[in-house]
């Protein structure tokens, strides 16, 4: 007889899961493996709510395998470390992000680019080599290979730091890769949500001039007064777009809904780069003439490798960067998801797992 999810591994675990595309979460009993020689076990304290969690809960991308325990912005305390674990000890403040496994041998893995490994294993909605499923951080504990665990710097708060494990690295990595770190250059950040607001903070720490590009005029005062952006453009106002044509060296596009690229491309200088990070479920329209006539490029980026994620955490700790969060209890998660769908959050929900997840 097939084992139930509660039995297929050795340690009991408890979390909240969705069982169908309604995406509604509710209490869920399952199990995790024993802590192996390479593993670190975390007691989970907080978990950020990423927009990808919502997409996967509702099967927006068509590859969800229910039941789903989401959550890949996981922070907590190490409660066990395997005998080969050198980087962590019991009691350490640790985190787990978007992936928990990769092949470790391909060119990408060897270059600390585990996030581009063709055999990477996501923290949730993924299968382990033994065929069992993975469950994410809306739960009480998790067991992860040490290679995929991050050490939280002392001065980085755990709750506000949790979203850095996905949102933070997702914007930091392309800034490094596409060369967007030269002080004085001009970056546009399209979309002011979980990713966008962290991008503004990190970009300012690099010494960039930052313009927020948003369809919501009411975010202007927030963007400039609180987040430190230098200016604000309402993307639906053609006159405002026109006045900023050819003014930006780069754009980080965090918008996940389908949206036109042409106005954003027009904002770029010659040789400008637009990096798209959102994952709409339809292709975008790419007007070719602006790319050709201005030697512009559109590139993608997908979170980051482990070494770079650790580097990003240290950078944020050094520059006092954490996410702006709204702390919620686990039983508020379904309401939070409804609000997230309407972008009604400044700017990341974080689940207070330790204080609200009880069986």
């Amino acid at each position, binding site marked *: 007889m097939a084992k139930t999810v509660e039995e297929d591994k050795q340690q009991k675990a408890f979390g909240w899961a969705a069982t169908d595309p309604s995406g509604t979460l509710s209490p869920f009993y399952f199990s995790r493996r024993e802590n192996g020689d390479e593993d670190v076990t975390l007691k989970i304290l907080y978990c950020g709510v990423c927009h990808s969690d919502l997409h996967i809960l509702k099967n927006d991308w068509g590859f969800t395998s229910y039941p789903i325990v989401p959550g890949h912005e996981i922070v907590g305390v190490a409660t066990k470390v395997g005998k080969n674990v050198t980087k962590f000890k019991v009691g350490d403040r640790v985190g787990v992000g978007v992936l928990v496994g990769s092949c470790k041998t391909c060119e990408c893995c060897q270059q600390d680019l585990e996030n*581009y490994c063709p055999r990477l294993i996501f923290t949730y909605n993924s299968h382990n080599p033994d065929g069992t499923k993975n469950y994410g951080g809306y739960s009480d504990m998790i067991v992860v290979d040490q290679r995929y665990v991050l050490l939280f710097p002392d001065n980085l708060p755990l709750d506000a730091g949790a979203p850095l494990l996905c949102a933070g690295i997702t914007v930091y990595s392309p800034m490094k890769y596409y060369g967007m770190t030269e002080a004085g250059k001009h970056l546009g950040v399209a979309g002011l949500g979980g990713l966008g607001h962290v991008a503004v903070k990190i970009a300012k720490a690099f010494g960039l001039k930052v313009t927020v590009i948003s369809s919501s005029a009411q975010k202007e005062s927030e963007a400039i007064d609180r987040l430190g952006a230098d200016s604000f453009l309402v993307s639906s106002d053609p006159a405002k777009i026109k006045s900023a044509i050819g003014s930006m060296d780069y754009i980080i596009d965090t918008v996940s809904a389908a949206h036109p690229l042409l106005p954003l491309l027009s904002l770029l200088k010659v040789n400008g780069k637009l990096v798209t990070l959102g994952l709409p479920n339809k292709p975008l329209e790419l007007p070719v003439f602006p790319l050709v006539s201005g030697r512009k490029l559109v590139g993608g980026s997908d979170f980051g490798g482990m070494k770079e994620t650790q580097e990003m955490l240290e950078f944020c700790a050094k520059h006092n960067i954490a996410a702006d969060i709204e702390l919620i209890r686990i039983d508020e998660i379904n309401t939070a998801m409804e609000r997230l769908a309407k972008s009604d959050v400044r700017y990341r929900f974080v689940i207070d797992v330790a204080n609200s997840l009880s069986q």
Partner: protein
Amino acid sequence: MPRLPEEEHPNKAFGWAARDSSGVLSPFKFSRRATGEKDVAFKVLYCGICHSDLHMVKNEWGTSVYPLVPGHEIVGEVTEVGNKVQNFQVGDRVGVGCLVGSCRSCGNCKDDLENYCPKTILTYGAKYYDGTTTYGGYSDTMVADEHFIVRIPDNLPLDAAAPLLCAGITVYSPLRYYGLDKPGLHIGVVGLGGLGHVAVKFAKAMGVKVTVISTSPNKEKEALENLGADSFLISRDQDQLQGASGTLDGIIDTVSAQHPVLPLLGLLKSHGKLVLVGAPEKPLELPVFPLLQGRKVVGGSLIGGLKETQEMIDFAAKHNVKPDIEVISMEYVNTAMERLAKADVKYRFVIDIGKTLKATS
């Protein structure tokens, strides 16, 4: 009252022009400016036919002003130089490509990127600094500011050199800029026409492995045996595309018709680059997942600056990169345009101006 083209400037000139959007070319008398102190004037010997010429004579981009003398792959011999010209003398073998002017003071111009200057002056169909219309190389003489003149080395035949001035630089520049010029890399070239065949030759000269990607199976033998490509893929064959998935460091896409981007992204390795040098009129569909999951890039490129154009010509001379051409007489030009519209040329027509352009009285 506006002056006739023949009377605008002091030096008589003769060429062939399109009079309307039928695109049919016929003899045309006009004039060129007196050779200014920084100008180089030359007798035109050959002019390549670029697909852009066809778009322009038919006003497909909506910007054409008639009468239109096309031609921006122009080569010949210097006949006169202005008294401040430093780098050229009478008798030199020279060429002019797509540009005859730019602002010379913006950031792009200062970085030798005149091709990205917002005030570029195209070799034909544009307004020069003096307000007159520029006329291209389907003509007997040409005059241009020294800055926009390129020297053709002695060991490069003039007729084969002509297409380098547009097709050549258009593919050479992105191979360099996007880092697809390193020995041992593997690139794809989509479309085997004027641009595509030169891309194959440059890439091979750079030590890069080349796969030609085309819709026409009959081009395979040519690609492999004549052009030296390493392999060939039919872009409509799903099995072939699947078999080559994730093998390319970059792709130079020369196709200007609408075509799907997804299969091309699939051919790229992670961190691969798809470079578009053809410009389809309508937007392409860009599937985002493959872009993100492999940190891939889609970029564009437009001809090249003058410094890089000279570098490209010198590279071609050194490595014997010569476009494959069909030399035609001036009278054949309308037939050539019809054949070009059907891609019936291996791979560039070049007009033998020197021997076949006869001024009518």
